């Protein structure tokens, strides 16, 4: 609160500080005069004793805030001046700063998205991808009907979500077919949350281990 009062009544604070130091100076002068020194000489000596009113004021806590602002301003000015004086050096400094900041930011955002916050879902360690692989080891597509069968008969996963890369076919309220392809159009099973852990890690990818899954299914 004290600093706030100082900001609001800074002129009063300054006046009081002035008055206090002036009082000291005058007392000192009077003291010298009593000792038999001429007023001019007394004045001069007292000034020397006090060593510059402004310097004294700058050390007082009332002025600390102003001092900070002033010194930051001075630093900025010096920085600008020296940057203008040696442009090549300034450019090099700015460039290395930029590179440094850029590289660090990049690495951090990589680590953040890969290691720290991989997916914005709960229990990400239980999410698996499910797909059908054909005899030719091509990634095969799954008909919607098959997906629905899977979904209905599933008792391994908490839930299953299908994802389509093609336009979907759907019916509106009046059962009018709009927009689309056949009901057997392409669809892939994409995410399923495992109720039982039947997944292993192969590198960074998480794959379903089919024998383990079969076991789990057989038990339940």
């Amino acid at each position, binding site marked *: 609160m004290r600093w706030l009062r100082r900001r609001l009544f800074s002129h009063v604070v300054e006046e009081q500080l002035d008055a206090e130091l002036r009082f000291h100076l005058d007392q000192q002068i009077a003291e010298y005069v009593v000792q038999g020194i001429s007023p001019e000489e007394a004045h001069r000596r007292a000034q020397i004793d006090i060593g510059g009113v402004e310097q004294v004021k700058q*050390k007082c806590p009332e002025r600390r805030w102003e001092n900070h602002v002033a010194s930051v301003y001075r630093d900025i000015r010096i920085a600008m001046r020296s940057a203008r004086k040696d442009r090549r050096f300034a450019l090099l400094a700015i460039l290395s700063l930029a590179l440094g900041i850029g590289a660090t930011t990049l690495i951090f955002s990589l680590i953040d998205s890969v290691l720290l916050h991989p997916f914005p879902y709960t229990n990400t360690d239980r999410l698996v991808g499910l797909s059908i692989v054909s005899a030719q080891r091509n990634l095969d597509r799954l008909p919607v009907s098959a997906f629905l069968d899977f979904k209905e008969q599933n008792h391994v996963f908490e839930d299953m979500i299908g994802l389509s890369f093609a336009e979907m076919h759907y019916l509106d309220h009046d059962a009018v077919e709009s927009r689309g392809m056949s009901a057997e159009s392409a669809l892939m099973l994409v995410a399923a949350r495992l109720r039982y852990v039947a997944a292993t890690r192969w590198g960074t990818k998480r794959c379903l281990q089919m024998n383990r899954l079969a076991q789990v299914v057989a038990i339940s």
Partner: protein
Amino acid sequence: MMNGERPEFPKGTLDMLILKIVALGPIHGYALSQRIQQISKDVFQLTQGSLYPALHRLEDRGWLKADWKDTETGREAKFYTLTRKGQKQFESEVLNWNRLTDAVSLILRTAE
């Protein structure tokens, strides 16, 4: 030993000395510097550059309270008085100081 120079205040003692003098009664900055100089028989001379920042710092911490009052000559001056908090602070600083000087003199006496 003195070399005719005025020794500087050991670190931390200035606050304690100011609190001590102010404890004797309300006093303004000039009188305070005179008092310290007189009592210490001119060993310590308090420059304004250290006196006023210290006074204002102590006031800031609530150890001193300041009021503008008339002096004998009828001029207004800022008088400092010790607060209850300042009294406590002074007592703990004296305690610390005694402990420190005792330890130092003990070492000086025994480590010969």
